[in-house]
């Protein structure tokens, strides 16, 4: 089927189409091989070597994994990441759905209200980080507002108990509009007749929500669950710019740990070993996601 004959025009239409389709996909495929698959294989290989970017890599067996496993900072990072992922995602699941339900109601000025809620999606992460760092400043607006209800000044980003929750709050605030849009699209795809039928059958708004909306929205709900975890897993900019992983490593998430190990301490092999853990997270979540995509009618 793949035999090249003399001249493109000399091929049968079917063979020509076969080649054309393959050639259309080829550039993207080559790119992904060079910048995704090869690096992944390379990361796996590197995780068995000691490498500092200067001298040539030396094979060291499972030494990197042992070093990472015995590094208390890695364990701390692992749990910081887990706390961050679930701390951000779980509230997002509910609050984003609530927002979508509110925005799906009929009300005056609805397009404008939606616009206002969705505007933050367009905002840069760095802008968000800067504004919140400013607001969390000991003299900043967060303390001023809380001070007016009698809460004392807290140095949010420099206190061990508050730094991670402060970052989690930003994550939630940032994620609600984004996942709200996805939920809203899901809500809009539910035919109105279903709700009308439920009302005729005597269902109140709550019953109609539980028995009609939720089951029909299930694919979207599952998708949002996975996506929110995946995107929280990758958080990096906020811990770097706002807390530098501190105080005492309480905001050093896994991507930050990997970045630090690789590019501050030049322990590439250990960083690669630690990325394998992050990969395991992503792998599990993506398997779930691909299953959902397939159920959503991809194949």
């Amino acid at each position: 089927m793949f035999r090249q004959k003399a001249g493109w025009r000399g091929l049968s239409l079917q063979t020509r189409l076969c080649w054309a389709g393959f050639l259309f996909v080829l550039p993207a495929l080559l790119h992904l091989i060079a910048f995704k698959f090869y690096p992944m294989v390379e990361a796996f290989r590197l995780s068995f070597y000691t490498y500092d970017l200067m001298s040539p890599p030396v094979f060291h067996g499972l030494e990197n994994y042992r070093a990472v496993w015995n590094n208390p900072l890695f364990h701390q990072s692992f749990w910081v990441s887990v706390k961050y992922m679930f701390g951000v995602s779980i509230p997002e699941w509910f609050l984003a759905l609530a927002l979508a339900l509110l925005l799906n109601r009929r009300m005056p000025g609805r397009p404008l209200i939606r616009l206002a809620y969705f505007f933050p999606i367009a905002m840069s992460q760095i802008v968000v980080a800067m504004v919140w760092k400013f607001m969390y400043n000991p003299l900043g607006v967060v303390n001023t507002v809380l001070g007016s209800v009698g809460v004392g000044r807290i140095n949010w980003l420099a206190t061990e108990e508050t730094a991670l929750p402060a970052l989690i709050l930003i994550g939630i605030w940032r994620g609600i509009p984004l996942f709200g849009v996805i939920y809203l699209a899901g809500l809009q795809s539910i035919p109105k007749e279903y709700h009308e039928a439920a009302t005729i059958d005597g269902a109140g708004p709550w019953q109609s929500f539980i028995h009609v909306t939720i089951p029909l929205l299930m694919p979207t709900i599952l998708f949002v669950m996975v996506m929110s975890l995946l995107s929280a897993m990758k958080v990096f900019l906020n811990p770097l710019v706002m807390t530098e992983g501190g105080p005492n490593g309480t905001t050093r998430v896994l991507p930050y740990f990997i970045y630090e190990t690789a590019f501050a301490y030049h322990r590439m092999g250990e960083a690669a070993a630690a990325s394998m853990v992050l990969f395991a997270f992503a792998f599990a979540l993506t398997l779930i996601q691909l299953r959902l995509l397939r159920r959503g009618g991809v194949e």
Partner: protein
Amino acid sequence: MSRKALMRWGGRLVTLLTIAGIGLTLLPYFWMLSSSLKTGSEVFELPIRWLPREPQWSNYPDALSRGAFGVYFFNSTLVALAVMAGNLLFCSLAGYGLAKFRFPYRELSFRAILSTLMLPLEIVLVPTFLVVRGLGLVNNYGGLILPLAVDAFGIFLMRQYIKDLPDSLIEAARLDGCSEHGIFWRIILPNCTPALGALALLTFRDNWDQFLWPLIVVSKDRLKTFPLGLAQMEGIDSAAYHEIMAIAVIAMIPTAIIFLFFQRAFVRGIALSGLKE
């Protein structure tokens, strides 16, 4: 009060709450804007000062002079546009190939492409850096752009959209003697402008915002992107918040403009990512 009237008032209350919620969503941005026009001493003034006494427009030129922000702005725009162009071209090509042709291992290719969704840069950071270093692209625009030029999400989006285009469109062009790449440029691309628009906006936003990758691959000041420049300024001069906020306002302008002009395509693009269609 009758039950019906109660429901109506309840509905109005919920609407009011919805509108009030906008405040919580947008307040930080308002605070940023207002602070960017304050004097250094007004920024932390008590009791809280929501608006500056006198807008300090000079904060903007002052802040901009603290770094090569013109260069950073240019770099970010260039990177975002180049990555966007790469994604539009390669993702629509691949999406077309996967949606409308049959060839051996097509399903396998598609699965392989989708599987790269679980390899975000954060995971393959070290080896990607080594690949780019091997290509001699460290401290180079090529190094900033090339690794990001194709993304599996874009391929997925385009494939889904092109799949729904009628086959008769393509067959008619083929019967008229149109070449295969001619069909792509003249039939396929013009018919998927909504998907292309959504993809363009999402890639532009994500890449104007690139931080981690430029942080690693670029160390020369003249190649830094705007987010890097902003973080760097904040690190050096963490007291001058009115000026940092001025730069932050500038950083949000490109994506804000794009959102306001193309909000429909923007929102649709995000909704499309939610496995719709």
